């Protein structure tokens, strides 16, 4: 049996979450979770739809600090002239997610917590039965590496790359109260448990503390629309000339490289990126090509700094 609930306050949502004791899933836009349900990868009985909680859908900019409600649709971010003025890298990232129609439903919070993906996991039940199940499903072996311990599903959040490059923070609420932490700290280097948030927690706000002096963003994918990322790089340079370069889509977690621009070299940047990315052959694009594209994109970013 499946049940749908639509609480109109965070308090009600949390109390439902406690009542259902792990047998539930939160819905933000629901554009990704619905597919997991159809593919029988998400089997919890209760859906708690956060759509009716009005406080979670808001955009405000004060003193160049951006506050975003987690349920803000990506399309609203793209259309905000103020966000475009101060945080164009975020607009660019939002524009690169899915399709124009999906972006009207998909939310920024949902995109930040989008589940890690792998070509051997994100498939129909029949496909998985045919090929053989994996560590993340009900199997005991990784279909990509043949290993028995680690899952290498990729984090594919485009907005996470941009928001980490912007040093953004998030507000989280559970029954114990409210906490704030940098976005980069919630992700774990594991394909199965890819963030450290407990089941019940609700992401409510995203705060972006500065408007960068320079920015750069690029996403690699098969088509110019719809596809999840094969490699996303978002980079910013702040007023103190600190470069923050975030790579996503090539490892279990977003990879951040943060260094003053005067000590950073292209060679060290590429070396750090290649060392930290645990890239395996679990995407439609070939592994060798994706690895090479890390160098290509970082070189493009590097050249853009001095223009």
């Amino acid at each position: 049996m499946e049940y749908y609930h639509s609480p109109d306050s965070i308090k009600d949502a949390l109390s439902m979450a406690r009542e259902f004791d792990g047998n539930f899933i939160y819905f933000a836009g629901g554009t990704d979770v619905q597919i997991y349900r159809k593919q029988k990868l998400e089997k919890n009985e209760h859906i708690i739809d956060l759509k009716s909680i009005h406080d979670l859908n808001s955009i405000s900019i004060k003193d160049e600090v951006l506050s975003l409600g987690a349920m803000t649709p990506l399309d609203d971010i793209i259309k905000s002239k103020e966000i475009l003025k101060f945080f164009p890298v975020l607009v660019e990232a939002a524009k690169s997610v899915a399709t124009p129609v999906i972006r009207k439903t998909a939310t920024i919070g949902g995109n930040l917590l989008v589940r890690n993906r792998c070509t051997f996991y994100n498939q129909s039940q029949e496909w998985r039965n045919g090929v053989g199940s994996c560590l993340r499903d009900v199997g005991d072996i990784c279909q990509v590496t043949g290993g028995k311990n680690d899952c290498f599903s990729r984090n594919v959040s485009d907005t996470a790359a941009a928001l980490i490059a912007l040093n953004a923070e998030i507000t989280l609420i559970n029954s114990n109260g409210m906490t704030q932490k940098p976005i980069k700290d919630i992700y774990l280097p594991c394909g199965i448990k890819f963030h450290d948030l407990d089941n019940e927690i609700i992401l409510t706000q995203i705060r972006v503390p500065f408007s960068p002096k320079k920015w750069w963003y690029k996403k690699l994918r098969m088509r110019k629309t719809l596809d999840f990322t094969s490699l996303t790089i978002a980079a910013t340079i702040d007023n103190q000339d600190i470069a923050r370069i975030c790579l996503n889509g090539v490892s279990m977690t977003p990879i951040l490289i943060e260094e003053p621009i005067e000590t950073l070299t292209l060679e060290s940047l590429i070396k750090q990126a290649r060392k930290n990315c645990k890239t395996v052959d679990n995407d439609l694009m070939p592994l060798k090509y994706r690895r090479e594209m890390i160098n290509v994109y970082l070189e493009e970013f590097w050249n853009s700094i001095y223009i």
Partner: protein
Amino acid sequence: MEKVTLTVNGFTQSVLVESHETILDTLRNRLNLTGTKKCCDEGTCGSCTILMDGKPVLGCLTPTLRCVGKEILTIEGISSGESLHLVQKHLVKSLGLQCGFCTPGVVMTAIPFLEENPHASRNEIKESLSGNLCRCTGYKKIIDAVENAAEEMRS
């Protein structure tokens, strides 16, 4: 099963639905509104696009219970009697369809886009329809049709 009241194409009616049901299945299987097409059923092709409070959404990803209290508009509610909407008229005129399976989704995507962006360029029209897959026409004629509709809407 839950009893819900839905407003579809201006008509309000009560219907029994499953908790997990999508509005696409409710429209097609319970209300017999089969103009909205079921194709990929996973948000990839755009065939099931409908309007919810004027905004395009994918029927296959939208829970029916999320549609309660909203105005749903499907392809059946677009034309007035036998007079086609401009977008439909130009799709016919420009031969922007062959099998016609993707056409309801194209129409339901193009109409709100043109209402919001009456001066859209060809590239913007292309991008707006980038989530609608067509296996017959190769897209050029669809883009032509929407571009011509935009031109006539402006005049």
